[in-house]
């Protein structure tokens, strides 16, 4: 359960060190996950987590209970992440408006239907190869989909909370999640089909005389 108890929040707001410590330890995994989703580098994400906790210590007194504590905190982390991207001159993730009625998504995972590895929920948990593929696919996923999916997989965040954190309408959140899964499945399916294609063999006549050694590995370098 990510949401801390009201008693813990109140004690932390009064400055009780033990409660502040418990709050931070309880939230660090979630803050770090959001930071990873935004910045994508472990060191940067750790620095952002630290910055977020420093800000939390400064502004926790301003939390007034209007929204859930986790919603308030994760929104703070997302905004800090966006500020950090701006500071580095990097593109801040856009949150394009999107309705759940935009197009028809029946089964977002349809593209994985022929891949038997997804047939058993118990087996995938220990499939490290698949987990590596997912991490790579997440890296190439559009920022708004990755961030929405990250929040979606936090245990007890509701769609309303995610909408409030990302500052987008509820329908947009649902659409991000459906389409994010669909995109992720498509990326995974395409990387799998690329993997099973045999490497292109290079005919002797293709090898330029001036670059014999490089040309031997032309198929690996993707050169023609």
């Amino acid at each position, binding site marked *: 359960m990510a949401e801390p108890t009201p008693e813990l929040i109140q004690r932390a707001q009064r400055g009780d060190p033990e409660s502040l410590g418990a709050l931070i330890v309880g939230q*660090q*995994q979630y803050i770090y*996950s959001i930071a990873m989703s935004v910045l994508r580098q472990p060191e940067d994400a750790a620095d952002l987590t630290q910055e977020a906790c420093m800000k939390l210590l400064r502004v926790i007194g301003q939390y007034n209970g209007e929204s859930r504590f986790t919603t308030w905190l994760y929104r703070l982390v997302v905004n800090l992440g966006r500020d950090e991207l701006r500071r580095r001159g990097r593109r801040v993730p856009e949150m394009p408006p999107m309705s759940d009625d935009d197009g028809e998504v029946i089964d977002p995972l349809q593209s994985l239907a022929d891949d038997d590895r*997804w047939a*058993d929920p118990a087996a995938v948990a220990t499939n490290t190869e698949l987990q590596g593929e*997912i*991490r790579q696919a997440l890296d190439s996923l559009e920022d708004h989909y990755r961030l929405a*999916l990250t929040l979606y*997989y936090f245990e007890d965040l509701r769609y309303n909370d995610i909408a409030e954190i990302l500052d987008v309408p509820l329908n947009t959140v649902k659409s991000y999640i459906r389409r994010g899964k669909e995109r992720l499945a498509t990326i995974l399916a395409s990387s799998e089909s690329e993997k099973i294609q045999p490497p292109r063999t290079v005919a002797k006549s293709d090898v330029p005389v001036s670059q014999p050694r490089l040309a031997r590995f032309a198929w690996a370098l993707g050169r023609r």
Partner: protein
Amino acid sequence: MEHCKEYRTNLALRPDGDTAELSQHAATCPECAKAAKRAAAFDTVVQSAVMPMVPDDLTARLLALVPGLAQPMVRSKRWLRQRRAFFAISALLSVIGVAVLIYGLYILGSYVGVSEIWHTQ
């Protein structure tokens, strides 16, 4: 067929969209049951990927930010082994020291004569 479409559309947003009628549908439709398993497998793997392990030293870094909080001492196994060895050697040396002291007093007593010491007082 209409149920298939509704069921699979709802799979992506499971917590909101599962109704009793749709659950019943999965029990009678092998294709939808397969899609449900695929969705569960997908959720398991993606969830673990979007929630990576926190770096080892991060907790200590974060707790160091809290004013007035006693820092938990993080000791390595090597440090604990060295500490145990130190206490064992200290105990052994103490025992030897006490034994030498007693033996020294005994030698001194027999040299001077313990009764003589008492008589002089």
